[in-house]
């Protein structure tokens, strides 16, 4: 069933953009909208998933009022120090990986929301270009350009961001639009 097949992914999608405690509320609102527009549900499972992400995205954007209304949402990134410590043993070259994550997390926080969105849809959600374009309501060509720019900017930030030798929680950033 579409609901159960996409529910987890939709919660993950929303969790990156709002506080964890609000994620399932947003998902419920998104599914209600989807239910009312069921005739538009794509038959392809991947396209249906992207369509639902798009509804959730607009639900989140519509939750922003007045001057706070934006066209893009800030995305959180995991705490690089916690990722390193919880699942791995610190050995030899691992310190290089940890440093890379710390750099990456710091660079991520400098990215514009539109670039965070593009990278998140491609890397974390695994969407194709056309599917990600549906989520953002732009053309596939526009998304491809945006993703390319996002990668370049992140690369540039990584080049100028020195590795952090100490496990500072610089990566944490609450991007809730609420």
């Amino acid at each position, binding site marked *: *069933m579409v609901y159960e097949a996409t529910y987890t992914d939709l919660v993950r999608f929303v969790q990156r953009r709002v506080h964890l405690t609000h994620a*399932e509320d947003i998902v419920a*609102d998104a599914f209600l909208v989807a239910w009312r527009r069921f005739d538009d549900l794509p038959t392809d499972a991947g396209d249906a998933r992207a369509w639902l992400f798009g509804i959730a995205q607009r639900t989140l954007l519509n939750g922003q009022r007045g001057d706070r209304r934006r066209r893009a949402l800030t995305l959180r990134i995991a705490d690089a120090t916690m990722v390193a410590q919880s699942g791995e043993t610190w050995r030899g070259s691992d310190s290089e990986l940890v440093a890379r994550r710390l750099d990456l997390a710091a660079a991520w926080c400098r990215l514009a929301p539109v670039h965070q969105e593009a990278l998140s849809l491609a890397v*974390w959600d695994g969407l194709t270009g056309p599917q990600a374009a*549906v989520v953002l309501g732009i053309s596939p060509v526009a998304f491809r350009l945006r993703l390319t720019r996002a*990668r370049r900017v992140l690369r540039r930030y990584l080049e100028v961001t020195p590795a952090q030798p100490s496990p500072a929680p610089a990566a944490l950033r609450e991007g809730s639009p609420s």
Partner: protein
Amino acid sequence: MTARLHHTDPLDRATGDALRSLDPANVDPQVAVGPRAQETLARILASDVSGPTTTMPVNTRWARRPRRRWVVAGAALVAVGVLIAAPSMLGGNTAFASWSPTTKVITPAEAALAGKRCKAEQLHYINTAAAREVVGSAQIRLVDRRGAWTMVYLGGGVQPGYEVICLNEYDSHGAVLNGGGSAGSGGPGLSPVASDTVAPMTGVGFGTQSGATWCVAGQVGSDVVSVVINTIEHGPVEATIQNGYFAAWWPVPATALDIGKGPTPVGPTYTLTLKDGTIRTNIP
């Protein structure tokens, strides 16, 4: 999920892997079948679909014909206009060998038992307070038996647009031998139908790997005494009429329900006989 980073990207593979590992989402894989998700689903199914839609999704390129909203109570089922029951549920094409174009008479007790089974089937997957209220209040609109198989059409109650079709093979004690397929709809409530016609809803398919069935049901006008469905597969099929509703089902090739690969079942035409003897043909 597969990342779309490749060797020409400005980001190298190691950076891409590191970025993937920094996904902040942390969700229990079972969240979709958890109580909160199921409560949400029950609330949505019980909602008024004609309510305001404040969040507009992006434009789609898909041109669609109207269709009812069907949700199947069962595993591995999809909701794409027609619904396909899990292959293991219906037992293969030979299971429908006993099917006949005319219906068998069943007793009120048998009909009541079949209706009870159908409701229990709906609650098997979504057994919340809201679902129990919606399903429990639904009325048995009709029961149609052909050969060993019984189709139950439920609907109405506290949620006027709620409808269910179950198709099962029961033993003499009412236990399910084969089947388990059922589909529920939360569409808008039914509108009055003219006295000399029928108002069929979109058909529902229950499929197997080797065979499938197509079910139709809907309202029937007060002057209609006979409904014959002109099917491509079996010619004229007599529908059951009870309580102002009609329904019928018939075997179709498995490919007919193979979404995207085979032809979608075409809406059949109807031949209606009215109280005064008038015969209306080719009713869409």
